């Protein structure tokens, strides 16, 4: 089995300010831009690599290509007007933004959410997690040359997008979870159609498992590569599947249950190797768990009930001064909204805590030195980062 042990002793030590003293004029090193226009990059970001031969000596993440100034725009909008733009913070899994923002507003404005709405919210979040994991599996397989798995996963994700469309009216940005509840009930016959999608997904996943986790190509490229020391998890703020692949069963759904997760039964899967293979495996198992969770939610949820509570007149809606932080477990880790209000009709400050913020910046820059150029793409997709939530 191929194993890659980086020997960092021959690379220059970073100075006290964290900068590497690399003299490009010696001709020994080369600067290589990995992105933003690169097939092996996750979204619109770039990594500035300094390479020596095939080995990467130093990597710097550059973000900001997707910066729209959301946190500033939100300060200019009333609490209800913020709604259309929160979901656009994170493209592949927008529902977490809606939930976290809605829950933060509800907490500060003291609004009760009906039980039925909580169940539908949980369903939506799990469906979003399904989508996001499908995207991640497709990305990992695509970056490692198993394009056909990517095709299957995108197709299955598309079937789930159809269910989203049926439920919310939109494919990507749903704007379904509002403060006070959700917009509508489930349509008639939704469970049966969802079951159909889940069965198709299971069929494709069984094939994908054979093709990915039992393939020698995939194993050779991923086992032992991109190792994160579990001792670093706390220092670098690693959460979600990346931490679970290193044996730390961090999951906000279990640690501090929100919505109706305390009434659901599910296992938090962990691995111990903490390499790319383990991270992919954790995602795969979690995806299976999500499929079971969707079934469980549809079985356990009440059939009737209010989905929206009474809101005050949204044109004159003022929220007293306060601050709160709402978090949830997205498919990439802990996702949270920090909301500060000052007694006016506008939020004072909203800060989005995306898991990619730490994964793609500090952690990736720490992991990159010592890898091969060809492994950088695999490493990046295995961390499962989405640039829009880094820069908002």
């Amino acid at each position, binding site marked *: 089995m191929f194993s890659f042990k980086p020997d960092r002793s021959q690379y220059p030590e970073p100075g006290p300010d964290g900068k590497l003293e690399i003299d490009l004029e010696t001709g020994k090193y080369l600067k290589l831009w990995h992105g933003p226009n690169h097939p092996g990059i996750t979204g619109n970001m770039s990594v500035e690599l300094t390479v020596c031969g095939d080995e990467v000596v130093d990597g710097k993440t550059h973000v900001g*290509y*997707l910066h*729209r100034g959301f946190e500033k*725009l939100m300060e200019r909008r009333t609490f209800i007007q913020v709604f259309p733009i929160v979901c656009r913070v994170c493209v592949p899994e927008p529902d977490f933004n809606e939930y976290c923002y809605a829950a933060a507003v509800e907490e500060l404005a003291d609004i009760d959410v009906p039980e039925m709405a909580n169940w539908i919210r949980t369903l939506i979040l799990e469906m979003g997690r399904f989508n996001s994991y499908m995207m991640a599996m497709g990305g990992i397989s695509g970056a490692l040359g198993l394009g056909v798995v990517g095709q299957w996963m995108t197709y299955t994700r598309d079937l789930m997008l159809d269910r989203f469309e049926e439920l919310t009216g939109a494919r990507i940005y749903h704007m379904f979870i509002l403060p006070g509840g959700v917009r509508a009930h489930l349509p008639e016959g939704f469970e049966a159609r969802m079951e159909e999608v889940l069965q198709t997904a299971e069929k494709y996943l069984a094939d994908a498992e054979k093709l990915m986790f039992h393939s020698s190509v995939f194993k050779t490229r991923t086992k032992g590569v991109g190792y994160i020391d579990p001792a670093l998890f706390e220092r670098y703020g690693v959460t979600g599947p990346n931490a679970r692949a290193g044996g730390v069963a961090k999951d906000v759904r279990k640690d501090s249950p929100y919505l109706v997760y305390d009434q659901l039964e599910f296992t938090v899967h962990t691995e111990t190797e903490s390499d790319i293979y383990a991270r992919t495996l954790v995602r795969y198992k979690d995806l299976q768990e999500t499929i079971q969770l969707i079934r469980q939610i549809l079985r356990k949820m009440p059939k009737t009930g209010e989905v929206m509570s009474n809101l005050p007149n949204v044109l004159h809606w003022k929220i007293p001064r306060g601050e709160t932080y709402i978090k949830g477990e997205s498919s990439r880790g802990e996702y949270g909204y920090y909301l500060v209000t000052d007694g006016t009709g506008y939020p004072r400050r909203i800060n989005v805590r995306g898991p990619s913020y730490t994964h793609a910046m500090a952690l990736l820059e720490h992991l990159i030195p010592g890898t091969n150029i060809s492994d950088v793409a695999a490493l990046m997709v295995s961390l499962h980062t989405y640039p829009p939530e880094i820069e908002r």
Partner: protein
Amino acid sequence: MKDVDDKFRKDTEKQVPLREELKPRKVTTPDGQEIDIDPLRDYFCDAKPKVHPKAYSKIVEDFYNWARSNSLWILGFGTGCGAIEMRPLMTPRFDAYRYGIQWRPTPRQANLLVISGYLSVKTLKRAIRAYEQMPSPKYVMGLGSCTINGGMYWDSYNTIKRLDDYLPVDMYVAGCMPRPEALLHGFMELKRVIREGKGEGANTYAENFDQYKVNQKAVIKDWDMPDYNW
């Protein structure tokens, strides 16, 4: 510009200093010679783009346009949220490949630049570079309302409001974000436009090159690349 807030005036005085690695400097070569290097002048071609003349007879030009319309090769550069609907297009369900549309990893092999949504100023710089590196004839397609008039980000300080000020756009697809079906329809329309000989974006860019550069430089404050990046 009628209701501009008078209280806030943007800072127009400050200039961005040139990056250290782009300043002219002296370099010692391995054989001991000292040479002067001006990175902005030496590493790039600074020839202006030329207008591509039409073929001498109409039937030949029509044939060319027919051929061009049937091989739209897209640069796989996801500049905004619309990029997420590109993946369903590449996969069997919507399958854009059956129309001769495919995605290429490098601008040198592509002839269609799809600006998939809002463009922040930082990405605009990269998009201009990517566009100028593409071989002619080339086309630009703008997705989403953000490329048309700013869309949802009409008051954002970091996104441009209309794309055709900076790049010659051949086709817009409206929506936030456009569905794959809308994208396919947009590609079909673009094909029709090209077949009719109206896909003249690259020539428009060459004709109004100075005006485009003025517009681009008005927004990109740290213009640290040559005017034409071959």
